[in-house]
């Protein structure tokens, strides 16, 4: 089914890979300067005893008092072994379920991901990012880049795609470096020939669409086309509510129609934009598959003669969803004419989607990395300043509390004496 469809694209990609082995992953990933931990390690350390912090936090939680974000950030900063990573995960969970959950700092999240990567707890980091509701981990784009990059370097495209899905759910495709890395992960993932369930297809389609909307070139438009097509397939199979529930997607029906609109836009555009050939082939195969399954469904139901079951199924499906399904034949015919139009205009790029992503990465990644690094440095300095301010504030409050306590004791002693 879907796997066999991708096989055709895969064989083309594999052939290219064999021809030019230098195009394999290592060259266009994030440079060593980006993933360097020197800047992060060079921050001034606030050495605290982890056991002491842990006991303080436990006592504060027992007494139903709020724990400050500074305590949690100190805990995460001072992790020094794998077991402490697990303990930190527990305290992050507890902090999220406390009144101060809104105040979890950016640098705590960044430091948590860094520590997980350092102590080999990458699956734990992925687990906390996936369960962001329970842990409150919302990394920024630099942190996401680090995580995706570590997965791509190991060739684990499935996990890289799940990280990209999290980026999509937070709609954090702001930086060009994030976009390029995600597109690379999304393009390389189907090359491993996975069996995609409907929900995985939906996530893949949504990530492709939202990432592609940010780019205005061949890669972006092909990504939008693929994304819309995948989401249209899910819409046909499950209905529109299954598409946009829980995802930042538009709730209007007709994703396949929007995919065809992308093609129309490319055909009508005067600029030199193209659509990659394997994207168009994939959409064609997808539509044919959908129409064949819908035909077999209806013919099978008629031949079985179980009219009651068919009626019940029609009741549960929405009327508008049914109207969408009826448009399927229309979409197929429109696709035919649009693809012929594009080919006649010469707007079909014969390079595979993966190669075009690679070319884009080669062009833009270096510049994007530089801007990202500069922003990161200034951000680290801002974080340090805020950290110092928080520490200063905590010290002041502690001194004030001490002073008040001393005054109270003095007053009580004076009252007792008198």
């Amino acid at each position: 089914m879907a796997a066999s469809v991708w096989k055709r694209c895969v064989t083309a990609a594999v052939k290219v890979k064999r021809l030019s082995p230098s195009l394999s992953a290592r060259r266009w990933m994030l440079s060593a300067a980006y993933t360097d931990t020197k800047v992060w390690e060079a921050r001034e350390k606030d050495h605290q005893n982890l056991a002491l912090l842990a006991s303080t936090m436990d006592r504060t939680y027992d007494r139903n008092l709020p724990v400050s974000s500074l305590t949690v950030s100190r805990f995460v900063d001072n992790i020094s072994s794998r077991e402490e990573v697990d303990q930190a995960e527990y305290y992050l969970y507890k902090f999220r379920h406390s009144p101060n959950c809104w105040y979890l700092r950016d640098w705590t999240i960044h430091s948590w991901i860094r520590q997980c990567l350092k102590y080999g707890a990458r699956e734990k980091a992925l687990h906390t990012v996936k369960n962001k509701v329970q842990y409150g981990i919302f990394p920024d784009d630099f942190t996401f880049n680090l995580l995706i990059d570590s997965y791509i370097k190991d060739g684990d495209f499935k996990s890289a795609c799940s990280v990209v899905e999290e980026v999509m759910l937070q709609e954090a495709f702001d930086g060009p470096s994030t976009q390029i890395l995600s597109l690379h992960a999304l393009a390389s993932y189907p090359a491993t020939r996975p069996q995609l369930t409907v929900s995985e297809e939906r996530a893949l389609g949504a990530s492709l669409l939202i990432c592609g909307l940010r780019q205005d070139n061949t890669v972006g438009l092909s990504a939008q086309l693929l994304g819309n097509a995948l989401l249209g397939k899910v819409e046909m199979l499950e209905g529109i509510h299954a598409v946009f529930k829980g995802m930042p997607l538009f709730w209007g029906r007709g994703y396949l129609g929007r995919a065809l609109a992308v093609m129309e836009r490319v055909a009508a555009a005067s600029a030199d934009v193209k659509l990659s050939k394997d994207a168009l082939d994939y959409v064609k195969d997808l539509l044919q598959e959908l129409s064949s399954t819908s035909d077999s469904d209806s013919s099978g139901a008629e031949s079985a003669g179980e009219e009651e079951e068919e009626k019940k199924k029609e009741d549960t499906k929405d009327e508008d969803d049914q109207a969408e399904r009826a448009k399927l034949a229309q979409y197929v015919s429109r696709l035919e004419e649009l693809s012929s139009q594009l080919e006649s205009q010469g707007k079909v790029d014969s390079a595979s989607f993966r190669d075009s992503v690679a070319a884009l990465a080669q062009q833009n990644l270096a510049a994007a990395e530089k801007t990202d690094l500069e922003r990161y440095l200034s951000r680290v300095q801002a974080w340090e300043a805020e950290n110092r301010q928080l520490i200063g504030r905590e010290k002041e409050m502690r001194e004030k509390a001490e002073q008040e306590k001393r005054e109270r004791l003095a007053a009580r002693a004076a009252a007792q004496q008198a």
Partner: protein
Amino acid sequence: MVKKRRLRLIAEMARKIRAYRELKSRPRESQKYALDYETMKRPHTGKMLPVLAWQDVRRESRLFSLLAGMRLFGMGRLFTRKSWLEEHTEPSYWQITKVKVDYTAENMDHGRAWGILTLKGRQESEVKELDKVMYHDWRLVPKHMEQQLKDFEPLPEPPVRYVPYPPLLRAMLLAQHKKAVGSVVAEEPVLPLKRDVLLNKDYFRRQEQETQRTEGTAV
């Protein structure tokens, strides 16, 4: 002689303690609005949701179910309601400015939120508390659709129409004016077809007080 009321101090104290304990044991939002999705009943009160809402409850999500998975609980993002999408063609949405989450909820699923409402394209000026937060009706506006919603220009309101007063009322008004001021009024009194006042208890009480003050016959 009326028997003097006994000073029941302990009962007074007990009443205060009971009021305090009731204040302390108020149910949290997560307890009040928890829902059993199989029987469509709220465990807190035992009441069942109205039947027409069942399909929505199964298909859509509460506001805080969406906010829990977002950075900073979706501050500054736009949210629509499915009922608004069906009722009005003009875009209506809330922009979130402040969130107070109920941290005892397991999935951070409940809480209160404040924001700026834009109803049918007209934006309001103040921050108000979002109502119907716990309804299974909410949809997040994705960032690529935000500009489309914000760009909408509402049509200007049609001008207020005026009609002449009924003849007896008009005569009463003119007579009143002549008695008060002395001269004949120059222009025709007109009745605006848009009501400015909100008809509630306070309004009627004020009207009664005013009629009691002014004496004499109307005509």
